[in-house]
């Protein structure tokens, strides 16, 4: 008995610091009045325009704080610049985790940076909600602490193909894309969905970045006579491709684009409505950017950032911020990192009121948004659509 008591006492003495350390880790970045959240984004450099994607989330934090916070705690953002560069992003993540000792992370544009951060953040174990970057590989395979709060590339690719096939009598589908990971993250899931539905793409073409002419591609398509074209192209190449389609008398063929473009800017770039009238894009929101359902969110952003020029990106992170606050409320005042992760995994069909599809996180699947709406011109007006001819 004495030996057993001695053993248990020794074991307790050895384990005590480790247990205390675990407790400290669980509540790192928390105080009675604040939850510190590391927000990484490209605030400088060539891709700094993507930092707009974090504005909506920051405005939502401000709104929550103005209303008293979550169980009396304010959401305090600690911003770090990744400059859309993996090395800088890694340094930013390490600083937030080790030096600033934030409670959790939320944000991140630039899939390449987010992918580079994944091993470090997975090992650190603090909750991380990805609020903009779309690459599936950030959250798949599953990492216990990493959650995706926007539609991933595969969700968008699936939505693109589903919309294409929702047009009656669509049998002949062509795909044109860049030969990079970004384009494949849309086109491969689209291909898979088409094949599942028994449709084999009849033409698969490449148009590289920087090309100023799409004559060869368009002429191949003219021979192929597709019912619908899926275009995984960046903004400039999309405009050039659409212009050339119209130029060679094929402007009546509908084209489905990615979330990397939007209707308004594509119209501005082509400078001609006829060129874009049959162009459709992934649109993750419940309404047009200037629609009634988006107005409260626009007002919220302008309330805290009056000079913000609103674009598609400005709203993208709001949905995941809402889901976070909902999970924090569910945990209650006795907050820990593990409890937050458990609460996030309980989020089911969470209607954000801004994203077109709800957020669901389960212990087996942390890619929360499984679909997306589509925007296209209907009677000359940008319109959000559920399927071909069906307004959202």
């Amino acid at each position, binding site marked *: 008995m004495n030996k057993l008591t001695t053993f248990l006492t020794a074991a307790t003495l050895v384990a005590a610091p480790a247990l205390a350390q675990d407790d400290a880790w669980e509540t790192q970045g928390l105080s009675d009045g604040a939850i510190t959240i590391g927000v990484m984004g490209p605030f400088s450099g060539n891709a700094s325009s993507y930092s707009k994607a974090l504005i909506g989330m920051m405005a939502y934090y401000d709104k929550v704080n103005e209303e008293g916070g979550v169980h009396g705690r304010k959401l305090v953002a600690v911003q770090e610049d990744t400059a859309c560069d993996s090395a800088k992003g890694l340094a930013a993540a390490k600083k937030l985790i080790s030096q600033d000792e934030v409670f959790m992370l939320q944000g991140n544009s630039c899939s390449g940076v987010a992918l580079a951060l994944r091993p470090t953040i997975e090992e650190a174990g603090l909750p991380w909600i990805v609020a903009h970057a779309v690459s599936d590989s950030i959250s798949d395979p599953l990492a216990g602490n990493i959650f995706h709060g926007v539609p991933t590339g595969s969700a968008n690719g699936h939505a693109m193909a589903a919309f294409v096939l929702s047009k009656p009598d669509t049998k002949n589908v062509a795909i044109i894309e860049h030969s990079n990971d970004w384009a494949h993250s849309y086109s491969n899931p689209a291909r898979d969905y088409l094949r599942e539905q028994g449709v084999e793409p009849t033409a698969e073409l490449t148009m590289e970045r920087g090309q*100023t002419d799409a004559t060869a591609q368009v002429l191949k398509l003219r021979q192929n006579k597709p019912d619908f074209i899926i275009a995984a192209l960046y903004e400039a190449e999309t405009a050039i491709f659409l212009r050339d389609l119209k130029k*060679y008398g094929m402007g009546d063929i509908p084209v489905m684009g990615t979330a990397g473009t939007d209707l308004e800017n594509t119209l501005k770039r082509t400078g001609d409505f006829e060129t874009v009238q049959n162009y459709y894009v992934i649109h993750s929101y419940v309404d047009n950017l200037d629609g009634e359902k988006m107005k409260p969110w626009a007002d919220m952003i302008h309330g805290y950032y009056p000079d913000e020029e609103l674009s598609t990106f400005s709203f993208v992170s709001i949905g995941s911020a809402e889901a976070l606050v909902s999970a924090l409320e569910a945990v209650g005042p006795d907050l820990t990192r593990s409890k937050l992760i458990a609460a996030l995994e309980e989020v089911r069909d969470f209607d954000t009121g801004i994203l077109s599809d709800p957020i669901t996180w389960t212990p087996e699947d942390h890619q929360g948004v499984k679909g997306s709406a589509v925007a296209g011109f209907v009677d000359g007006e940008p319109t959000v659509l559920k399927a071909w001819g069906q307004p959202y």
Partner: protein
Amino acid sequence: MLMQLTLGGFAQGAIYALIALSLTVVYRSTTVVNFGHGDFVMAGAFLSYVLVVLAGIAFLPAAVLAMIAMFVLGVFFSKGLIRPIRGGPHIGLALMCISAGYILRGIARMVWGREVLPMPPVFDIEPIFLGNLVVTGDAVFIIGTVFVLLVVFFGLLGLTDLGKMVQAVYQSPRGARLIGLNVERFNDFSWGVGAALGALGGILVAPISLLHPDLGASFLIKGFAAMTLGGFGSLGGAVLGGILLGLAEQYAGAYIDSALIEITAYVFIVLVLFIRPHGLFGRKAVVKV
């Protein structure tokens, strides 16, 4: 389809020809390969954008003004940055060109960021359908403009006293100096003409493409490929090389694989350097011992 591809190839090739010619004009007189030339092309396109969109000037006078401005820039670049290091190692000249190009690109990025800017359509005429062949306004305008410019350029070079002086400097700068020609001023003039011709390439591509600060990079490679194919230093070869490259891109993209469009220029460079290093019209280097 062959006719359509040929027309598209000629239009695209005409722009490559212009850029290769502008590179060759500088190379022939100064033996400097302007590695920053793509950004001169970009600068020409942006200047025309500023004049057309922001200043409200019509496209044709704006194009002429942009070319004049780029000519002046080319002359100042030669006088201010190339001449002082002319006697130094060739790598220094190459680095100076690259640096100047990056400065131009940096200025464009500072002003316009990463925005992709549209130029208002200037060839806005309805395409003509001849059976399956679609003749577009932009193809006609580009081919026509480059053709007229080449006729004037080669006419001046071959038929006038000015052209004879230019050829004299090309053949022997020392000899030209001995007969009283100001070779330094001629070199400045060549940089100006090179910059203006390159700018015209950018100006022609602007309305059919979109403007962004990195626009020039791919055109530089196309220019090099056309130059290599035509033969380094051959003015006519540069033009022919540009046209052949434009055609090859279209044929390869349509008949083999669209992914080949992007690499055609590199394939040309590799093949020509292996099979006929002096290109179609270049002269074999002869070393007297």
